């Protein structure tokens, strides 16, 4: 790797994808929310939301807790400690990259 490339901060690609970034930004503002909440505030379709939440779960950035409410399945999603750290690091790295 050349010296010039080391100057730019590392950007986490898992967080950097727009849909996943929206999910993490939304979850960073609350303790947890269900999938309807995420769908409303990210504007993602249900299918895309499910896929992206799964990817974030595989990366260890979100926790998904399933339960039944009135006999209907409900998923509550929250950022894990690693997710909060990753998101905070991402914000710092983007700030360094963009100069603010």
């Amino acid at each position, binding site marked *: 790797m050349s010296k010039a490339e080391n100057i730019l901060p590392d950007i986490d690609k898992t967080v950097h994808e727009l849909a996943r970034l929206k999910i993490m*930004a*939304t979850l*960073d*503002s*609350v*303790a*947890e*929310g*269900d*999938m*309807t*909440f*995420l*769908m*409303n*505030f990210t504007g993602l379709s*249900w*299918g895309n939301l*499910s896929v992206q939440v*799964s990817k974030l779960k595989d990366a260890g950035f979100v926790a998904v807790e*399933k339960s039944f409410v009135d006999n*209907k*399945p*409900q*998923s*509550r999603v929250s950022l894990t400690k690693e997710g909060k750290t990753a998101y905070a690091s991402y914000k710092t790295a983007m700030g360094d990259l963009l100069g603010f």
Partner: protein
Amino acid sequence: MLQKEKTLEEKIYLTWYEDGLIDIFTGVMLLAIGVQMIVGLSYLMAIVGFLGLVWVKQTKQTVTDVRLGKITFSAERLKAISKLKRILVAFMFSAIAVGIIVRFMHDGTGATPYPRALPIGIIMIVGMGLMARMIPLPRFSVYSLLLAGLMAVDVLLGYPLVYAFLVAGGIIVFMGTGDYSRFKDTYPIPQERDEEQDDE
């Protein structure tokens, strides 16, 4: 003067109040005060207030949470909500105390040299101002000014203050109902999804 940009957390929190339920409740309370003054039913305001709070809580669960999604706010926000509730409860008890004092002062007959509804109106104006400031819901400043303006007009023109409560209450219920309708259009009931299937 630049308005402070709201954080994402504040925007999410304030969305929870877009359903218009608190507006409808406030308007109904003002109407109840007006009706109480006309028919002389004591404690009508207390009964309506209690039933109104039960209705707001129930509708939040069956309409707002279902459409907007279930949110657990952060610990800091929950602490702020708890503080707000304590202040509003303290304010409510103070208002009741003022009402009792006004009722029995002036040689015990309840007759006053000023319109009897004036202290109640001032309490409602201050209460709405508190909500505008503390939640914060800026539209409640408008409601507060509306009631104050209508009361001033009634006093200047020599009309009973009951008109101010009825008109203000009606306008606020109308606006709250409009917000409620818009909220339901903006956030339709999500279609039932098989979450188990989505994970495959």
